[in-house]
């Protein structure tokens, strides 16, 4: 019963979120603030994680492809396709669910327990729409850019690390990342990013918006939001992969 209750309430919330804004100008102002807060502030963490993961994957692929029968380009190809298909979309979404998702839940949850949301409602503001819609649009908008940044710096990480530790040369790596390239992989992953971005923002907002109690409950709601968002990301990853890639 609890599961269906949450599903029902989530869609009721979404209906409120996508209602007509009271003052579009205020929503647009809020949207830019959210793009900065949720998106631009996440660039550094995405960049650092991607460089390291790119480097680590290159070393691991090189280790796994030590057999001289395997062409050396496979190291670059493996790193590239892992980044393009899974890491920079799905794994990044899981990381972002932790960073951005918990931020959204705690911010909205704190506003709930300190009566700031009641205050908006009494003024006649659609609080769900004003607080959540800009966050959803901001995360959905910024996620594809973060994906591109992640792929680029992941490949760069491999390019620097591989030759540095002596597992592959720069020309071999560059040949590898250009070998058997399917541009559709990028389209596929950007579609995933849009879906994951929506899930991260809306599910996290849901847990914050309906929190009851005090600071302890806000913390618990943040944890629940991250866990549930991660499960949903993996579930939708499976569905989208089945629908769009096979």
């Amino acid at each position: 019963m609890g599961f269906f209750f949450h599903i029902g309430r989530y869609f009721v919330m979404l209906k409120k979120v996508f209602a007509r804004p009271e003052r579009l100008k205020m929503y647009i102002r809020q949207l830019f603030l959210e793009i900065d807060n949720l998106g631009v502030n996440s660039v550094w963490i995405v960049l650092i994680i991607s460089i390291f993961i790119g480097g680590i994957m290159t070393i691991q692929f090189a280790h796994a492809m030590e057999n001289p029968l395997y062409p050396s380009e496979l190291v670059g190809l493996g790193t590239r396709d892992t980044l393009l298909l899974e890491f920079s979309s799905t794994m990044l979404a899981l990381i972002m669910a932790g960073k951005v998702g918990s931020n959204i839940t705690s911010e909205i949850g704190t506003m709930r327990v300190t009566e700031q949301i009641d205050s908006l409602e009494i003024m006649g503001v659609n609080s769900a729409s004003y607080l959540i819609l800009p966050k959803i649009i901001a995360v959905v908008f910024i996620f594809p850019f973060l994906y591109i940044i992640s792929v680029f710096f992941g490949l760069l990480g491999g390019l620097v690390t591989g030759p540095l530790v002596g597992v592959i040369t720069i020309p071999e790596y560059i040949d590898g990342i250009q070998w058997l390239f399917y541009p559709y992989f990028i389209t596929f992953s950007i579609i995933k990013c849009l879906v994951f971005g929506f899930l991260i923002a809306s599910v996290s907002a849901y847990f914050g918006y309906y929190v009851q109690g005090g600071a302890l409950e806000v913390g618990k709601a943040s944890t629940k939001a991250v866990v549930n968002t991660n499960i949903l990301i993996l579930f939708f990853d499976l569905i989208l992969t089945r629908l769009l890639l096979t």
Partner: protein
Amino acid sequence: MITVKNLSKSFDGNTVLKDISITFEQGKTNLIIGRSGSGKTVLLKSILGLYEVDEGEIWFNDRNLVNMGEKERKALRRELGMVFQGGALFDSINVEGNVRFPLDMFTHMSSAEKQKRVEFCLDHVNIEKQAFKLSPSEISGGMQKRVAIARAIALNPKYLFCDEPNSGLDPETATVIDQLIQSLTKEFQMTTLINTHDMNSVIEIGESVLFISKGEKEWVGTKHDILNSNNQKLEDFIFANKLYAQMKRGQ
């Protein structure tokens, strides 16, 4: 004027308000008093429309909140100002921005007009200009309450609601807040409802006092009538306050 008729409200079968009928008059500070858990906040939030009532009517002059659609409710809410117990100021914007928020959202004033209105409201609650750019976390509890009052009056409301405006404040600051609410009520001719269990507020500004106990209307009168009341539950409540007990005994 706000008229409540036969209002009842329960949560999960637990009755919190039973058949409350009362009229809150315009231009007066109407106090709702009672012990913690007596149903004061539920009554206030029901009148505000934050809770759907089980039975009864809530009239804002000639408009019944209970029968209103969502659009009408939204329109009515623009006539309401609310001061929450904790202030409920928006953390992410500064003092000035908090007061400007309802103006940005609901008016077509120019920037200069908004600024003038913000300064007018903050000046009315005695907030100095140096504090305009500070964030809510950088100002004291008393100042937060005053900023919350300034935000509540920004749109010239007809009705002002205050949920325990003195909680967490020292007696001197609490008196300042009480007097401020009363003077604003007179100046702007608002219908003001104040939810409190602070007997000092009753002595200070209780022009009309509703005492509720266990969700029922127990007594209605003025601050002067309280001293002559023979209601046992009211006496039990006010005698918990030693100062008030001494006043009643004429000491």
